[in-house]
């Protein structure tokens, strides 16, 4: 019986925590146990044998920290570790797991380890372990979902062994980086792991809850390997507060809660495993049921489609949006991310991400937007593209289980999309069209849907992973189109097939489209529509959704509706009355008043005069106050943002071709992830009329030089917050001097001083943001 057969037929036992035993045999704190595979193989084998004698069926080779970031002699360590475990297993019916723990580094965007580098670190360990003869891969103690995904991909791509995964949950029932069990189950089952669960960081009592929560969602066998209580150090030694008796008693409850692969982690000596085996051996063995839920996830939570109508925000899409297209061409990620964040605030559950424009590299842009959105929004994403390479790349780096938009009934589409879903996990929006076009009848569309579902099944993708979009077509060109679509939704719903619609197509060609859309949306929800791609900034649509939720009993006590309806006017409104001029609004930092007053002024004053005689003088007033230390930085910034809003109004009224004062490239240097200061400088510079090319944080010297070259910027601003990153700043300046000797460089940041700046060759040191503006004025005038 191989390990996969075993876990499907009986309770399987994993060994306990090696550290405790090894330390009692002389392993000093701070010394890597992996080294003992080479220096003390007899003790490692003895440790394994004790667990085998206690009844363990799966032995974790001593490879937890074995990766190239920590060891130079990786091959020797892993090969001897697997050999030690196999030697110990002789005479036992047991399996050897290649044990993979975290890298010790934090992945981007929270840290600085790139995702693909993490995959490659794990891949090296997997290749050696598989070659050495491991029977399975156990990825464990992972407290970050993204690192977990990197490890699983590495395992899946580099061996054919079964893959088991256990995560380390904190006492709040979530991973350190935020994922709850539902999110982890969605992602890991999507990636095709063979068993999943939890280990370490808590004792069995606390883990019982997480195990029960996991059992609600999991369809694959559940692993639970708790610590022997909570770890405490007494006199330099690990001590745990749950003994073997109590541990094994609670393990019986854990089996009853749904776990079928059990063992221990820190502090669980062979005695713990022995007692656990004795007490649970004859308990009923029940595998998790197939849940067949339609679930997508982010790095914090899962969203189930099928209970109540789910809103997918449509705004990250260039179609028909001039500003968005410009942002894409300029590679202005902040604009795009802003669209994501503002939709999040409006209450959408999933963000659609479409960045397709003929003239841009969609694969690069889609991965970059996906990665960046993951730093600022915890909503699951819907990857929306017709470029399959871009789709694959975005799915790969997505931290969760994505919704994929879309597949259709054409053979080519299904052959491209389904293998990606099989590999990376995901739910697909299935559009009901095929080589014969879009069927005119509801029955025809349902037939295409069923064809797509049948084809997905050939890849092992369940019906629950397919969400059918029966297509809303313009009612203005076919008066029956809404009826057909609604009928299709009804029929699909009756067959237990999930549905989605891009609602707003229905009103194409009609006036007051939002009204028609909202009515159609309500009708579709009444027919059982599970999710819809809509514009959450449309009050009509949000009213329809909130109203529907309240009326159909999906909003307990109508709480959400009441909150939605009672949204207060912004706090700014109170003070707005006392502001009568644009200058005052800017000085006080009131954004909406500044915008409204600028619009008002435009009726009588020319756009350029508004800038020169109202906005700039107001900014100067605040700027002088700041320099005189009577105004503080947050006020300066509020004024800058208010001026920014006024600019928006003025810009819209300005004749095309009005040029900016000049271009400036700014960046936080390589290795530095702080960007608050840099963002402040950027805002102010923009307000003084400069075009700022913001390269973000952790920017390599080459990128700065390239941006300065391509944009022709005369000035580059660099920021560094830490002494450790000042060398990177110096390197950037050196490269700029070499490649662009004419270009001026100004530097700033918490650790900078005028002397320091001069030492590393900068032209200017800006102690604060206003100073940066003054320097720019000097350079460009």
């Amino acid at each position, binding site marked *: 019986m191989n390990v996969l057969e075993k876990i499907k037929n009986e309770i399987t036992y994993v060994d306990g925590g090696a550290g405790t035993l090894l330390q009692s045999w002389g392993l000093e704190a701070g010394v890597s146990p992996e080294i003992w595979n080479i220096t003390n193989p007899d003790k490692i084998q003895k440790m394994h044998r004790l667990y085998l004698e206690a009844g363990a069926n799966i032995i974790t080779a001593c490879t937890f920290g074995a990766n190239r970031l920590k060891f130079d002699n990786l091959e020797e360590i892993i090969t001897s570790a697997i050999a030690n475990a196999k030697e110990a297993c002789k005479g036992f019916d047991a399996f050897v797991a290649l044990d993979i723990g975290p890298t010790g580094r934090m992945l981007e965007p929270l840290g600085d380890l790139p995702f693909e580098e993490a995959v490659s670190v794990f891949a090296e360990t997997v290749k050696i372990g598989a070659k050495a003869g491991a029977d399975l891969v156990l990825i464990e103690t992972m407290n970050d979902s993204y690192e977990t995904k990197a490890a699983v991909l590495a395992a899946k791509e580099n061996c054919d062994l079964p893959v088991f995964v256990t995560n380390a949950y*904190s006492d709040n029932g979530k991973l350190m980086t935020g994922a709850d069990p539902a999110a982890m189950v969605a992602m890991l089952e999507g990636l095709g792991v063979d068993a999943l669960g939890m280990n370490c960081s808590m004792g069995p009592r606390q883990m019982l809850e997480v195990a029960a929560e996991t059992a609600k969602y999991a369809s694959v066998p559940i692993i639970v390997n708790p610590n022997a209580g909570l770890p405490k150090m007494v006199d330099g030694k690990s001590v745990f507060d749950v003994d073997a008796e109590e541990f094994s008693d609670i393990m019986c409850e854990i089996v009853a809660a749904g776990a079928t692969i059990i063992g221990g982690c820190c502090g669980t000596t062979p005695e713990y495993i022995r007692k656990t085996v004795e007490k649970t051996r004859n308990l009923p063995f029940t595998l998790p049921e197939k849940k067949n839920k339609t679930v997508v996830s982010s790095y914090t939570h899962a969203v189930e489609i099928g209970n109540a109508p789910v809103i997918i925000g449509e705004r990250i899409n260039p179609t028909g949006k001039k500003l968005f297209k410009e942002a894409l061409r300029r590679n202005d990620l902040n604009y795009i991310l802003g669209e994501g964040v503002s939709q999040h605030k409006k209450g959408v559950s999933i963000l659609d991400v479409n960045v397709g424009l003929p003239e841009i590299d969609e694969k690069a842009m889609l991965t970059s937007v996906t990665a960046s959105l993951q730093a600022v929004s915890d909503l699951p994403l819907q990857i929306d593209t017709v470029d399959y390479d871009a789709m694959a790349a975005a799915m790969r780096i997505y931290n969760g289980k994505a919704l994929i938009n879309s597949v259709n009934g054409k053979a080519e589409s299904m052959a491209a999309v389904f293998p990606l879903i099989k590999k990376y996990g995901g739910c697909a929006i299935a559009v009901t069209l095929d080589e014969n076009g879009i069927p005119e009848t509801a029955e025809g569309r349902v037939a295409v849907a069923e064809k797509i579902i049948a084809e997905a099944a050939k890849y092992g993708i369940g019906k629950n992973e397919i969400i059918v979009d029966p297509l809303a077509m313009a009612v203005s060109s076919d008066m029956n189109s809404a009826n057909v679509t609604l009928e299709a939704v009804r029929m699909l719903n009756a067959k237990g097939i999930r549905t989605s619609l891009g609602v707003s197509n229905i009103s194409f060609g009609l006036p007051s489209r939002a009204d028609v859309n909202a009515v159609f949306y309500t009708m579709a929800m009444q027919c059982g529509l599970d999710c819809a791609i809509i514009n959450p900034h449309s009050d009509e649509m949000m009213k329809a959704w909130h109203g529907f939720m309240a009326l159909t009993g999906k909003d307990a006590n109508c709480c959400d509706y009441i909150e939605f309806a009672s949204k207060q006017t912004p706090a700014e409104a109170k003070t707005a009355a006392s502001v009568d001029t644009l200058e005052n609004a800017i000085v006080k930092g009131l954004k909406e008043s500044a915008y409204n007053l600028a619009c008002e002024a435009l009726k009588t004053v020319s756009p350029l005069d508004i800038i020169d005689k109202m906005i700039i003088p107001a900014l100067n007033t605040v700027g002088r106050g700041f320099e005189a230390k009577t105004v503080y930085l947050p006020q300066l910034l509020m004024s800058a943002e208010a001026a920014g809003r006024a600019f928006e109004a003025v810009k819209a009224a300005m004749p095309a071709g009005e040029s900016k004062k000049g271009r400036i490239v700014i960046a936080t240097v390589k290795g530095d992830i702080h960007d608050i200061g840099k963002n402040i400088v950027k805002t102010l510079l923009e307000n003084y009329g400069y075009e700022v090319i913001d390269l973000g944080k952790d920017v390599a010297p080459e990128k700065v030089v390239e941006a300065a070259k391509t944009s022709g910027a005369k000035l580059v601003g660099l920021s560094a917050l830490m002494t450790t990153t000042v060398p990177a700043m110096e390197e950037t300046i050196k490269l700029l001097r070499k490649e662009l000797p004419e270009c001026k460089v100004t530097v700033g940041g918490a650790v900078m001083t005028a002397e320091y700046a001069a030492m590393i060759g900068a032209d200017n040191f800006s102690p604060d943001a206003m100073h940066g503006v003054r320097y720019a004025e000097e350079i460009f005038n």
Partner: protein
Amino acid sequence: MFQIISAKPDEILIGQNAIEEYLGYFGAKLTDELMPLVEECKKELLECVDYKACVMQTECCEKDGKICLGFMQSESKSLSGNLRDCETVFVFAATTGAAVQRLIAKNSLISPVKGMITDSIGSAAIEAFCDYINRKVGDVDYLRPRFSPGYGDLPLECQQALLDFLEAKKHIGLALTESRMLTPVKSVTAIIGLSKEKNKCKNKKGCMVCNRVNCPYS
């Protein structure tokens, strides 16, 4: 003795003064226009902050001109001064969690001023949590001011040894970048000496922000 300390958001009082100081308002009052923004950002932070720390009590001694803490030795004169006559120290790593870092990034995107305010509240929050840790580990009257890598002549390089010693990545999800920054941001590592005599230092915020010339612990 090793312990993991966590706290609920409402257990940690983030001082309004501390926030104002981080925003640059030393003694000055926030304007009426700023107040609602500060309140909004504070509310958002309190919804996602996840205070966690791991603390290890260890022995401390001076040998051959070096200060020895078991897991590390240092020639730092500043640390040596700070820990003079201490035989026991608490080494800790504390964080406000990954969600706070994400909130700061998100708010910076919405509006630089919101970003700045959230960043300042994050700083005030981790500072307040460190004070909470002080109270949890012992009698604050006998604790020396907190001392972190990077203060005085204690190099940032010892940060990794400290995190490894505490297994901070595993216990509280705290790691270092290659340029030795703590991730998530708004995290602190520090060493606190346990003194036999009552502490003579009145500066609760630690040595980093203190410019005292005749310090008894320098």
